[in-house]
């Protein structure tokens, strides 16, 4: 199950994301929480202290590759497990949180 949460800035979506994550985690479900913003607001809302928030994923987790037809796309440079293991932070109730990185000039993203 992959759940995305959207809403206008200030609508409370980060608090809702964090709270829903922790509720699911308390039911024994391992949850990966991902902050779509490069700012670590989700980690804070999950209860991680400020000092625990090291860094967002670096842009080097992806690289741009060109296929045979000349179209470029973003490709992960490492396995998902390694990326989560390296950049994921452990929050309460067994939650893992990843903070997104901004990739410039990514077209339609």
């Amino acid at each position, binding site marked *: *199950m992959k*759940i*995305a*949460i*959207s809403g206008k800035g200030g609508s409370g979506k980060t608090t809702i994301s964090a709270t829903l994550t922790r*509720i699911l985690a308390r039911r024994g479900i391992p949850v990966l929480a991902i902050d779509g913003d490069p700012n670590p607001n989700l980690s804070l809302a999950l209860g991680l*202290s400020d000092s625990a928030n090291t860094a967002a994923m670096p842009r080097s987790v992806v690289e741009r590759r060109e296929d045979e037809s000349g179209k470029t796309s973003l*490709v992960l440079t490492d396995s*998902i497990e390694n990326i989560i293991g390296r950049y994921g932070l452990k929050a309460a109730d067994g939650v*893992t949180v990843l903070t997104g990185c901004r990739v410039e000039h990514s077209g339609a993203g």
Partner: protein
Amino acid sequence: MRSVIGEIVGGTNEVTVLDMEASIEHLSRGTIRHVDVLLVVLEPYYRSMETAGRTVPLARDLGIGRIFGIANKLRTPQDEEAVRTYCANHDLELIAGIPFDESVVEADRTARAVIDYDANSAIVTELSKVADFLMPGDGNGGK
């Protein structure tokens, strides 16, 4: 077009909660192509509801099958009615109405998660129902 977050969401088998960027311009195919459920948060005032209203058709066009509304920061029955009416008129099923919750403010002030500050707060109670709705039973088979 792919995105970093889209690739991670698609690549992991874990239950994933993605807190999306605020701007709906970021609602791109690359980011959400592996998303099963989109929860759209609405506050009971016009600009917030309009943002949600513009998100829904966009998300449907991008192929997300399950899209639900969550009303937040409701202070009065009129607030709830306003969101309910808006959702009904925009083909958005509302699955939760979270009252304005002082616990959220207090938790933020003390840099704690709301669920740690007060596990019985209104927002936790209401979102527990959302969890029941999305993942009936328990964690098993929750992929």
